[in-house]
């Protein structure tokens, strides 16, 4: 995919700098950053490349990858979603509450209670997505305000709903099998992430929905004049993003074995950073899903590495903020260099 685009875009007249620019403008700076981060941490801390840690990184990254998939879709459509963290929190407490209540009433109905809980969690995602989508597409509220508002609504609701304390009492099928289980040595959350990546890549590259997404993000007026129902498609992107966040929320809840009203607060910023580092444009219409996935992997490797070399979590937050801003600056530069 990458090489194909490269062939088309190398400028006919070009010294080495033109080639560098061309590579940079197509694949971005991410592959370089990934290599640098891996080499740096491997040199600093041998435990970093231990087999156990590598599996660990992959498992840790799944939640961010799933959220970033949705975030990337919204970014490509020309918006962004700051409420993904709140969706995770609300999903966590609601699915945990439904699951534990049902399980308490029917100790034999382990499978049914898990299904009830997951359905409740996905329903939360659906509601958030519909509200965000309706606000942005129908009432033309800016995505920033709409999703910021819903982020506040969500985190407030999660605390109110639980009184601030975690929800426990979920069946072992959920906490043990889905949370920490493995199939063929692969952790179950990783399988979910792989399925989500494949589904989203298919949606984006092989369906009319995906094509319309890029058109709407690239030039909404042109899309409208081409007969695309812009409002419905825009709304559907927010729904899909919230559903993916809800899925991540459910998997995280299983992982931590309780419904946590404080879960997911770091996700909005991290998912936007991951997508932008991965080459998705903040102005819409541009970016590839695989780039966003690698971006999420990069952010996870970075936090994992910083944990291993004992960088304080406060300092880590500083690092994420700086990386986001740098990524946006690079995105701008890339735009200028392309011409």
């Amino acid at each position, binding site marked *: 995919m990458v090489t194909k685009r490269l062939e088309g875009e190398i400028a006919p007249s070009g010294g080495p700098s033109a080639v560098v620019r061309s590579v940079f403008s197509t694949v971005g700076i991410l592959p370089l950053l990934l290599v640098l981060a891996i080499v740096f941490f491997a040199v600093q801390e041998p435990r970093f490349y231990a087999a156990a840690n590598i599996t660990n990184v992959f498992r840790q990254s799944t939640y961010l990858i799933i959220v970033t998939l949705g975030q990337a879709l919204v970014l490509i459509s020309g918006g962004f979603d700051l409420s993904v963290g709140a969706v995770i929190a609300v999903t966590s407490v609601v699915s945990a509450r439904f699951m534990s209540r049902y399980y308490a009433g029917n100790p034999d109905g382990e499978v049914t209670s898990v299904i009830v809980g997951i359905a409740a969690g996905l329903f939360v995602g659906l509601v958030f997505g519909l509200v965000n989508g309706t606000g942005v597409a129908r009432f033309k509220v800016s995505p920033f305000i709409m999703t910021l508002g819903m982020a506040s609504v969500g985190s407030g609701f999660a605390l109110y709903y639980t009184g601030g304390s975690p929800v426990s009492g979920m069946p072992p099928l959920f906490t043990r099998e889905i949370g920490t289980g493995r199939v063929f040595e692969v952790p179950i959350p990783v399988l979910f992430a792989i399925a989500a990546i494949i589904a989203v890549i298919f949606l984006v590259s092989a369906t009319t929905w995906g094509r319309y997404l890029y058109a709407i993000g690239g030039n909404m007026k*042109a899309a*409208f004049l081409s007969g695309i129902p812009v409002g419905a498609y825009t709304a559907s992107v927010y729904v899909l993003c919230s559903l993916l966040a809800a899925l991540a929320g459910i998997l995280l809840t299983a992982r931590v074995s309780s419904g946590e009203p404080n879960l997911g607060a770091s996700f909005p910023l991290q998912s936007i950073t991951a997508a932008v580092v991965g080459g998705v444009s903040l102005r819409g219409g541009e970016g590839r899903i695989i780039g966003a996935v690698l971006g999420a992997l990069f952010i996870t490797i970075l936090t994992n590495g910083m944990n291993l070399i004992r960088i304080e979590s406060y300092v880590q937050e500083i690092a994420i903020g700086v990386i986001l801003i740098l990524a946006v600056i690079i995105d701008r530069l890339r735009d200028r260099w392309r011409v």
Partner: protein
Amino acid sequence: MTAAQASAQSGPAPSLPGERGGVELLRLSAISKHFPGVRALSGVDFDLQAGEVHVLFGENGAGKSTLINIIAGTFPPDDGTMTLRGQPIRLNSPHHARQLGVNAVFQEFSLVPTLSVQDNLYLGREHQRAGILDKSAIARGTRETLELLQFHLDPKAQVGSLSRAEQQMVEIAKAIQGEPSILILDEPTASLTENEANNLFALIERLKIQGLGIIYITHRIQEIHRIADRVTVLRDGQLVATVAAGDVSETRLVELMIGRSIEALYPAIDYQPGRMMVRTDHLSLTSGRVHDVSIEVRAGEVVGLAGLVGSGKSEIGRAIFGLEPIGHGAVEIGDVPIVHPSPRGMLDRGVVYVPPDRREEGLVAMRPVRENMSLGALGLPTFSRFGVLRRRLEGVSVREIARRLNLRPLNVERQVASFSGGNQQKVVLGRGLTREVKVFIFDEPTTGVDVGAKVEIYGFMKELCERGAAILLISSDLPELLHLASRAYVMHRGEIRAELVGDALTEEAVLANFFDRAVDAA
């Protein structure tokens, strides 16, 4: 006239001692400028004497705007040198240019709509006393300037509430206020009535006498004969010729502009008017910009829609395609009344609208040609099944269309933004070929398009028409409209002023209906 001159001499307008006709104000040598995918100017020479009107003439996209933007300091040239009164200069910004006495009135206004006329005139150079705005001095200065120009405007009126013509006057007043030695006017009469235009010409005469150099862009040959001293003709970013306005004929000018004889530019179309395809029945828009308009377009004909900017001609095309809310009246497609036109519904009925501004409404610039061309037709079975794209068929059919339209370079995977204006326009037009279309609404189809691509676009329209499509051509390019349309409506202030058919469709007849009737009577 003499009284006006006298008042101009004594007024606060620029007085530039020592600068009279024959003194060189400005010289540009070998100026070049590139934009992504476009060579806007290459090696152009230009000079301006004090006390002359130097007209820049050329088609849209010939490089006129680029040249005046360089002179006005909007952006620097890539190559070439500029001297102002013999001194080499390099302009950093429009502000810098203004400080050196170069003021420009562009077609796109640089006014703040929420401020009053006088606040706009003094924006950035307010009279102050001890750091406090001297409002009475500002008001006085504004009155004097407006009086000098004989513009009847209320200095306290909010600019946003003024008509386009009035805003144009404010823009001109603002430029004069800066006491320039070089004044650039970019199609200043495009939205003025004949009366207002006459005032402007009188003003230009007065400014010439005072030694100003005026660079004037126009598409109207009558204006060249009326006010120009010299004419510089540009074509495709290159200097064609600089000639004295006195000794050049109209046909010669047009031939210099398009680079070939007029006959070779416009194809002869074989019109075969057939079934009624589109009709508006006493159409009025809620915006009030179109009032009680009834037009019809039949299969196999090209119907022109002419009028000044703001006459409502563009809004009719947009209303038919569902882009403007309809107040009263109806739109009919092939005898079927359409209650709420929408782009989707119209596309399904075989109506395509080609918007005037490719970048704004037509193209998704960062996506490849393939995706842009197929965008309006992806829902059709040729391009997708159950929402899944048929990429191979898409590629085949888009490449076929690109070949038919002679897209250059013929690479449908290239980003649209990297194509020239003419080829971008072909991409927009190509959309009409991805599905079955019976009605084409072209809104300014050749703005910013080079001559070669223009010929191809006209040929494309001929082919469509002769195959039985109905074409509504909305155009401000009068020669284009006169040569391509078999019938034309002339719009004036939101209403149809005239319908001209066959031999009655002449430049004089169209122009006579552009302006207010009162002027004709006067």
